[in-house]
């Protein structure tokens, strides 16, 4: 954030140079994986993955269980480390920082700075159960961003309104339905004003009846032009509606990607076709 001094004169066209995030032109990759390798013990979960997301783009990741979908998001959020390769977020290397002109492994300070770019919504909501809905949302803005309590509460109000839960601010998460909890989780992530939102199967822990209300909120967010979205989901119909691009993952690689109409409806690859057959009615 305070790096406006570095290399912001470089041509925005050459993706290699470090550009200050605020000036990354739309269409410029805000997320960039280059030959990223991730292993858990013996198994290789991401296998020289190359992957890019442009600023403002809405990308959906689909693929069978264990193909590494969550791992991509978790690495971005620095919840997992990588074994090899380079990742850039908003023009800056995620796992490295520049010191005296050389790239060195990132310190905790740099990682915290990078995480501020992103917000994440988890499959299991992961609300803080011992705090009211409002505290859940204000806690980080107050103690991480240093907002005043009043300011943070105001912000909480705003995002609760956005997800349609203004009147539940004083309840505890256990008093809400799963769908409501997930909407609070979205509000909580938004209150940190991230440029990128990561969603990891946000509806798969929900009763089928409650899926709709969460998808509605996400759909509304997808309307925001500036917000970059990376979404893992099994809701094919929804993916088709909101995505600019769909990536089909298998065994840690992207097998097929493209506009949803192509990947979801008329996939080229047999692996994709097989996978989609498992879903009763992709169209």
């Amino acid at each position: 954030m305070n790096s406006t001094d570095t290399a912001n004169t470089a041509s925005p066209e050459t993706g290699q140079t470090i550009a200050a995030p605020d000036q990354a032109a739309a269409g410029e990759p805000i997320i960039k994986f280059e030959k990223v390798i991730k292993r858990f013990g013996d198994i290789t979960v991401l296998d020289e993955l190359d992957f890019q997301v442009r600023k403002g783009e809405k990308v959906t990741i689909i693929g069978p269980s264990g193909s590494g979908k969550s791992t991509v998001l978790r690495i971005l959020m620095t919840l997992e480390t990588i074994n090899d390769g380079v990742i850039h977020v908003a023009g800056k290397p995620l796992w490295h920082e520049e010191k005296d002109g050389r790239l060195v492994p990132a310190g905790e300070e740099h990682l915290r700075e990078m995480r501020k770019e992103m917000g994440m919504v988890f499959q299991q909501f992961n609300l803080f159960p011992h705090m009211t809905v409002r505290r859940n949302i204000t806690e980080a803005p107050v103690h991480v961003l240093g907002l005043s309590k009043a300011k943070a509460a105001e912000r909480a109000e705003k995002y609760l309104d956005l997800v349609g839960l203004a009147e539940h601010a004083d309840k505890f998460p256990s008093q809400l339905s799963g769908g409501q909890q997930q909407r609070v989780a979205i509000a909580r992530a938004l209150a940190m004003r991230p440029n990128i939102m990561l969603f990891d199967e946000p509806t798969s822990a929900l009763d089928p009846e409650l899926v709709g209300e969460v998808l509605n909120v996400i759909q509304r967010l997808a309307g925001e032009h500036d917000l970059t979205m990376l979404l893992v989901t099994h809701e094919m119909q929804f993916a088709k509606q909101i995505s600019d691009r769909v990536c089909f993952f298998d065994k840690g690689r992207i097998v097929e990607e493209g506009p949803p109409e192509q990947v979801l409806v008329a996939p080229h690859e047999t692996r994709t076709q097989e996978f989609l057959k498992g879903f009763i009615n992709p169209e």
Partner: protein
Amino acid sequence: MEWISYLNPLLQGAWVTVELTVYSTILGAIASFAFGIGKLSRNWLIKAISVCFIEVFRGTSLLVQLFWLYFALPILGQKIGVDLRLDPVMAGTLALGLNIGAYGAEVVRGAIQAVPGSQHEAAKALDFTPRQVLWRIALPQAIPEMMPSFGNLAVQNLKDTALVSLISLGDMAFRAEQIRNFTQDSIGVYTLLLFMYFGMALVLTGVMKLLERSVGRWRVGRT
């Protein structure tokens, strides 16, 4: 009824038992958190100290600890030229508090570790520092988890106070011994004594349940 006459001296002893229970439980709670959190520390020295404390006080018998503090520590003090003569109340409180604290430390550690990893991840995603995660997220969630075990430990502690009678502290069990010395009425004295301890334990259990409910209020609701 003869045993009515036991009641007064026993009640005097009961007060000592109550005081001792309260002091040592407080000391135990402090030790529990200090060493329980210490055992999870990334600093190896703090971790080693915590592990040693827990293993030593859990690994030896309470009565051995009590006798050691009361009889052996003064001799050790003599050898190194420091006055380590503890009076019985001090020795009793220390032994009981540290012993229960070692068990409590494991409870604290377990409860903190039982906070799901997903909570840590959610907190990290919101950019909390590790220290903030411990104090704002993990501990507040862990405390209600600890309460049932703490309740059991408090009752355990109450029962253990009876052992201080063996270092001549005038608690309820000690008074009972005195009365029996005098009257030789074993049945009356011990029956009364057992029921007094039982009653105190029930009260203590009730208090701990109330406490449990008050710290876990957020756990009400649908699930």
